[in-house]
């Protein structure tokens, strides 16, 4: 089983984690002014990158904290993990 490095707990088995999809999707600054189309993009549309992808994970059965990772979606290999307060990594 693949080991995932939790920034707080260290390497743990993949089954301990919950996937959270694309990372760094900010809540809209001006939600009241958004058009339907802009809301649709915030709610439903996410990048579906083939290759290096910045995404969120939760260590569900460990510390229960969220963190970010860069993972290659073709090899599934984790390149790095980072805490939520770390800056957004450059993926492409």
């Amino acid at each position, binding site marked *: *089983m*693949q080991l995932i490095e939790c920034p707080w707990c260290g390497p743990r088995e*993949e*089954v301990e984690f*919950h*996937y959270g*999809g694309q990372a760094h999707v900010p809540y809209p600054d001006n939600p009241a002014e958004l058009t*339907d*189309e802009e809301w*649709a*993009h915030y*709610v*439903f*549309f*996410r*990048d*579906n*990158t*083939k290759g290096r*992808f910045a*995404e969120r994970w939760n260590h569900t059965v460990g510390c229960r904290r969220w963190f970010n990772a860069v*993972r290659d*979606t*073709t*090899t*599934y290999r984790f390149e790095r993990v980072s805490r939520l307060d770390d800056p957004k990594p450059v993926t492409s």
Partner: protein
Amino acid sequence: MRLDPSHTIRTPRTPGVDLPEHPDFLWRNPEPQRSYDVVIVGGGGHGLATAHYLAKNHGITNVAVLEKGWLAGGNMARNTTLIRSNYLWDESAAIYEHSLKLWEGLEEDLGYPILFSQRGVLNLAHTLQDVRDSVRRVEANKLNGVDAEWVEPDEVRKICPIVNTSTDIRYPVLGATYQPRAGIAKHDYVAWGFARRADEAGIDLIQDCEVTGFTTEGNRVTGVRTSRGDIAAGQVALCAAGHTTVLTDMLGFRVPVQSHPLQALVSELLEPVHPTIVMSNAVHVYVSQAHKGELVMGAGVDSYNGYGQRGAFHIIERQMAAAVELFPVFARAHLLRSWGGIVDVSPDASPIVGRTPYDNLFLNCGWGTGGFKATPGIGWCLADTIANNELHPTVAPFSLDRFVTGALVDEHGAAAVAH
């Protein structure tokens, strides 16, 4: 010692001996021309079916199907071949039932044996909420002319004696929905049947031809760039399943699908033990027995995005635990092989079909875990849409703009595979 002549010696059945021989010739392997009226990106089931119906229903044959690998080598070669139409909403029932009706005449249409076997599907209910949802779906199916019934546990036992219907298991069987017209088909033969027909009609099936970009002019796509040169196109249809967003990223518009690994596996060959199809939402397994004798079992999707055509082993482990609890008789069956495909999952577990920001580019994706059953149905409707440059009414509800209008078609319940 002489045997009584009435005594027949039982010889073991050779698996696959009753399957039809392959024909000597299936399709040409043409060089791409420089221009086509219609270019279909993706030579899987949906692309090939679209090509077939373009020729058959509309007489459009100046068509190329571009496939980056080999024909029908993606999800068409990796699915669990289940065909059914017992979806909840009117929109879904219409497209899947249209497809099922086409399946019922497909062998004749294609002139090719596809081994379509209508052996029925049981969708098990394990909780009171499952029961309520299932009964509701049965009633909805009936209103839409889809054959469906609610069966109690003793009837489940009659239809499929090997299901464990005892009450002391973790997920007891409280009943099931049953669609007798559901079935399985031999997926490769289906693809080859469509491909052969399309080829006979003069359509070019071009393998080893990866689309690497598009040429556009304003709101029109003028052609595709490929690993085998540029090809001009009057109209373009995307039938690329898990790789759809790789293409739409090149075109600069977004589609709300996420590509996930979806795994399945087969056991060694067994004597016929499993007469129908059994699916279970709650424990994430669906099982049928293929014509040759292997048990074919599918899992839920792997949770993370992935393009690797393989998934994590713990998914398989959980799926087997569920299968063995439901079918104790499988406990000693050996697993022969497992594999993964890449499925494009949409937010409401319904497909995304129709128009795009480009006037002559049509989208067909988001079928997620259930695209195989739709093969003839979507091929028919997409061909009609391309030929008339107007959405076929059956696919109209599945437009990309439903995510803006809010008119979602939520089929998470009937999709029956954990997303």
